[in-house]
């Protein structure tokens, strides 16, 4: 086993500024403990779009992003691998509709204006929900970032939106939830945030990559042990209230390492997992929408998963 890990002076990690496992691990000093010999540099990205560019330019070694952006990365042949699922989206991302519109089902959205941040997990979830309802071409989709969704909502310019917390909380007083990502996940349309590692880095420093994954797993374990403590840590790290952090974290699932590297998610030892299959479907769907040029095959997705340093 390579001990070249010691030669790495700095590890650059692209993060999302949300209350997730990375935030917990940072706040509680897990990273420092795991990487005493390395300088850790955390770089915040607003979206997976920017994170992908940074990975491509070699500006970061790890980056967290929505799995849809992971599909884009694979389709664009960026030399990266999926090494971790940070969280599975659930109630924290939802399709909401203005209460006054008196709409109860997705099918009734025909002719309405719906906003969502394009290229996000919400975007994919929304498209899937609309396709299932068979009204994909009968609504107007608008590409907006979260705060502009709030502004447009307040002006009454949009009738519905698929977005995440904390934006969701701003809309909910006047809105009803039509479906959320947990509902969709039950139908196999799973979305989540994932961490990609540069292939070159993972190959050169398998031990460091392994340790990185283990560090995040610590956060997952903490959440299972003591949810409240994980919430406070994340809240403090991100700079939001405990209440807000709790709301957001309650909406997500943190699988933990043992589950992730099993058939439930990423699969083990070259076999395919459920999450990988979901991503494959995502790829096919996106290719169908022409947002990516060709859909990667399931084998490509299997190869996309970092196999790790899996001996005990």
């Amino acid at each position, binding site marked *: 086993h390579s001990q070249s890990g010691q030669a790495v002076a700095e590890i650059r990690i692209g993060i999302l500024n949300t209350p997730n496992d990375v935030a917990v691990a940072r706040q509680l000093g897990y990273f420092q403990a795991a990487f005493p010999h390395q300088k850790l540099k955390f770089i915040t990205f607003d979206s997976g779009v920017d994170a992908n560019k940074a990975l*491509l330019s070699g500006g970061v070694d790890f980056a967290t992003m929505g799995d849809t952006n992971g599909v*884009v990365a694979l*389709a664009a042949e960026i030399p990266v691998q999926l090494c971790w699922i940070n969280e599975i989206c659930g109630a924290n991302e939802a399709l909401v509709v203005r209460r006054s519109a008196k709409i109860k089902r997705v099918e009734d959205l025909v002719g309405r204006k719906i906003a969502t941040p394009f290229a996000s997990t919400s975007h994919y979830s929304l498209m899937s929900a609309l396709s299932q309802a068979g009204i994909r071409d009968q609504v107007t989709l608008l*590409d907006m970032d979260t705060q502009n969704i709030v*502004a447009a909502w307040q002006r009454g310019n949009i009738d519905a939106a698929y977005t995440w917390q904390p934006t969701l909380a701003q809309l909910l007083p006047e809105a009803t939830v039509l479906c959320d990502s947990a509902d969709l996940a039950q139908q196999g349309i799973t979305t989540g945030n994932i961490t990609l590692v540069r292939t070159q880095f993972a190959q050169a420093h398998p031990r460091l990559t392994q340790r990185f994954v283990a560090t995040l797993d610590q956060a997952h374990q903490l959440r299972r042990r003591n949810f409240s403590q994980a919430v406070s840590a994340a809240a403090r790290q991100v700079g939001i209230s405990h209440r807000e952090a709790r709301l957001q974290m309650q909406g997500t699932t943190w699988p933990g390492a043992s589950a992730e590297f099993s058939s439930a998610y990423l699969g083990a030892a070259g076999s395919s997992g459920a999450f990988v299959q979901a991503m494959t479907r995502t790829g096919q769907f996106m290719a169908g929408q022409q947002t990516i040029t060709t859909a990667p095959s399931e084998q490509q997705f299997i190869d996309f998963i970092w196999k790790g340093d899996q001996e005990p």
Partner: protein
Amino acid sequence: MSKKRKITLAVWLVLLLLWEVVTRLHLVSGILFPAPEEVLRTFVAIWQHGYNGIPFWQHLGITLWRLFSAILLAIVTAVPLGLASGMSTTVNGLVDSLVQFYRPIPPLAYYTLLILWFGIGESSKIILLYLAAFAPIYLAGVEGVHNLNQDYQLSARSLGASKGQIFRWVIFPGALPSLFTGIRTAVGVSFSTLVAAEMVASTSGIGWMVIDASKYLKSSVMFLGILLLGGLGLLLDWLLQRLERRLIFWKGQL
């Protein structure tokens, strides 16, 4: 062909060649830096089949419409206001600090407010472009007046010209060379605000095309959009320069 044109042509040919060579030899990643022929292929495809289900001409048309209405609006308002602000202390006191204040604020920072006030339709996009174009023209107006030799105004007053007449017959033509520079800057600035303006709640326009493509790392579409915007800007600037040469025959004679 003039010497200048020959040199310009040579520069672009060299650049094209360089681009071709760099991509042929795979000196940079093909993911973000597509080969010229790939961009051309994308262009033909988009020309024929449109992008995101909307024909190419519609993308171009909506973008140009947004741009031109914003620039026109900016010219119509910023020229008189800039000149008035250059002439009168009162107007200057009223307007100048406001313009100088909003001018440096990034459009991306206040776009949310525009949406709140003007909705997500065309108006907020056009207003954003308008605000970007307004400032350079206004500034050029003020400077045009200040740089104008005092004697022109003095002799006009001696000839009995009223304030309005001085404005139209002396200040305006005297500041025209400066205003033209301002308008050219404004066209550039509003072009370069285009992506920001079309980033929100759009599904059409060249700027939106670039943003959408960049989200999915479709670099050839992105490059095509960049080249289109640059080319359009170049064309517009060239037209403005021609117009200027026609109109301002006294340039360099002040």
